């Protein structure tokens, strides 16, 4: 780390000159954003809240995927490129479970719905967790000592393989999931509409998030995960089985992806082989936005991205529209990586990122 210090030292002086520019620009950008939101709010407050609920729901799904990225990155410093496609597989597995195994149709009874949801959730989580752990075993573990980019390249390859598995299994077109969730309103006050399907997404997401937090912060296995993330060698010296801990992390991350897949399939109603690619990148952006490796950060980033996307797609006054969603998300990703690589909640590490 001594090299870092010496490399930075002469540049500290230069920093003071430009140090006003960046915060000013950021403040300006934020101000414009707030102005835009404010005008939209004034033009239609009820609609604005309805859109916000959509954003919150999107954010909940993104959070589950983003946590998978963050968990894996935290422990291996690997961008698990195949994670988005794993999520897509989770969606397909859940769709199969819901439609074929449990035979759900629109307006099924509440009891059948709860049973089917819990059953599909369990199956999707376990299946995706196992797939993810085996991917780690096959494709990433042999490259543990290789140059850093080697596992990333295999991850890209794995992503393509998973997409093709989906194509081979379900074909290249969208598979539709019937609208099994109750569609009535939870409340509708002064034009602000909140529907049951959105609430159910939150109802499923929150316990999963708290279970994850409990697992990571309160259990022995979670302690092992945190120790391995901090320093793999030291953790091994303390008697932690590093390989098993890493496998376990992939298992958990896969489980989260499976849960997200179920929610996505239920809420958006359609899954295709390339769903995971675009959504995975959005979720990765969310993880980076919150500070990669930081669990609350991933949730915060995901919810922010969810809001941004909903406002962009849904608002009427000078919104770029859904044609530009991908570009906006990537622009955020690039800006964050370039100007604040530690994210919103992350701590600045000596490595700079």
């Amino acid at each position: 780390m001594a090299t870092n210090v010496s490399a930075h030292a002469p540049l500290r002086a230069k920093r003071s000159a430009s140090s006003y520019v960046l915060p000013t620009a950021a403040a300006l950008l934020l101000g414009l954003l707030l102005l835009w939101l404010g005008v939209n709010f004034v033009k239609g407050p009820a609609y604005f809240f309805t859109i916000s609920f959509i954003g919150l729901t999107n954010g909940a799904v993104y959070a589950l995927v983003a946590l998978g990225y963050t968990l894996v990155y935290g422990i291996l410093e690997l961008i698990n490129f195949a994670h988005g496609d794993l999520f897509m597989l989770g969606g397909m597995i859940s769709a199969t479970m819901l439609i074929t195994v449990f035979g759900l149709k629109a307006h099924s009874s509440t009891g059948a719905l709860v049973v089917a949801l819990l059953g599909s959730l369990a199956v999707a989580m376990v299946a995706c967790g196992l797939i993810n752990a085996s991917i780690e075993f096959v494709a990433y573990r042999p490259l543990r000592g290789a140059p850093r980019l080697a596992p990333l390249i295999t991850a890209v390859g794995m992503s393509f393989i998973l997409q093709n598995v989906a194509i081979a299994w379900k074909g290249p077109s969208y598979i539709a999931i019937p609208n099994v969730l109750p569609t009535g309103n939870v409340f509708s006050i002064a034009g602000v509409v909140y529907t049951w399907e959105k609430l159910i997404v939150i109802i499923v997401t929150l316990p999963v998030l708290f279970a994850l937090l409990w697992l990571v912060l309160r259990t022995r296995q979670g302690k092992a995960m945190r120790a391995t993330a901090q320093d793999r060698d030291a953790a091994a010296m303390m008697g932690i089985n590093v390989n098993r801990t890493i496998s376990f992390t992939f298992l958990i991350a896969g489980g989260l992806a499976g849960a997200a897949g179920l929610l996505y399939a239920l809420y958006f109603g359609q899954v295709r082989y390339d769903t995971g690619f675009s959504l995975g990148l959005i979720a990765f952006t969310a993880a980076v936005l919150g500070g990669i490796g930081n669990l609350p950060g991933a949730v915060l980033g995901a919810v922010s991205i969810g809001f941004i996307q909903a406002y962009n797609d849904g608002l009427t006054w000078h919104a770029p529209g859904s044609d530009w969603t991908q570009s906006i998300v990537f622009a955020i990703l690039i800006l964050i990586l370039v100007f604040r690589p530690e994210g919103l909640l992350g701590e600045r590490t000596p490595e700079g990122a």
Partner: protein
Amino acid sequence: MRRRVVQSLSRAWWAGLGAVGLPRERWDALPVTRRRAVKAGLWVAIFLVLVALFGVWKISALAVGAVIFVLLAPAWDRLTIRGWRIGKWFAPAAVIAIVAAYPYYVNSMPEVPLFGPFPQLSTLVVMTIFTMMALGLNFVVGYAGLLDLGYVAFYAMGAYMAGWFASSQFSKQHLNIGAIGLYPGATGFHFSIWLVLPMAGIATAVVGVLIGLPTLRLRGDYLAIVTLGFGEILPQIARNGDNLFGTGFNLTNGTGGITPIDGPGFGNWLGHHLHLPANFLTAGDLDSVFLWTGIVLVLITVFCSARLRDSRLGRAWIAIREDEVAAAAMGVPLMRTKTWAYATGAFFGGVAGAYYASYKSGAFPDDFFFQISVFILAMVILGGMGNIWGVIFGACFLTYLDREGLSNIGTQINNSFGTNLDVPKYEFGIFGIIIVVVMLFRPEGLIPSSRRAAELHEGVHDEPLYDAEIA
């Protein structure tokens, strides 16, 4: 493990030969030239038997066999005439000659087992284009060791440069600089393609620098994701650019793409006096002239690759790839060197994109997907990162698989086994498997550069160094 398998195989082979009266001692006693000839003859014989049994036999198979034999049997690389070691130029010259003459014999080729017929001429043209792109990416991934997952952005940029400056896209403008074969009164910018190619390269290089300047100080994996982001943003701009930001300005013609784009050509005077095609698009053998032009472009790219690799800049790239901290300590300016790698790679991507747009006579946003970036990356990885021959091989092979090989193989498999597989459907899965398998078992690629192989097997100091704090 692998070595033990190879050893036991070789022992069994020699035991078998010894049983029929050809012991190893007799073989070892033969002069080297004779041994080479026997080996080459054996391979040719196997090839001919396979073609005769499982392919479609044509008399030209004998000619193919003869050419392979002549190429393999004598030790051409040791050839010296009056102290000039011309031998090392033999293999490249022979390959160029064979490829350049391809239009004259493509229709009389036999069918190879499993792969089916020889590739068509148009496939060869696309091969040259993708070879250029793969060599361009090789500057970034192979030489400088920076993973670029958004190379398709440069390809798109080049294609759209051709679209802007060699078509009627901007119909309010009238400018014609040396363009060939226009109908009278054509509107829009019409630059000669020979001018557009370097323009596209330079514009793309500028874009590469603009992308690189803020991002190249990021660590390798973050850089990969950021390049991926740019690789998604630029095509999206192309897709939505028919009414940019609601101003009504039509930059890219949206999903329709820009078409038609002018073809290259040399004009009537040069065409008449030098027997060059006046206009490629109206030339009788359209694909052949595009192929020959493509070969020239590839040769230029190869020349630049080889010379840059051995230059001061190229050695700086390799130094950064192997050990960023040590390179910085030895006074290599990290940012500038990386940016040059980016710009150089982008340049060739842009030229290839513009040439492809001119060949297809169109630039369409649907051509620029993330899959293409990974496709080109797979070429570099399969062939061997950092090795020019390897990258060329990877590019040609994967382009062939993409355009003809997979469907041919699928047909052959279905015919022989009575299955009903749609092999091209699994194309990108197959590329994914290729990437994973190569990275796991032979990370240096099929034709490795020895230096890269050593790095990948022994490992290098891989921790990044930041030469500037953010902002």
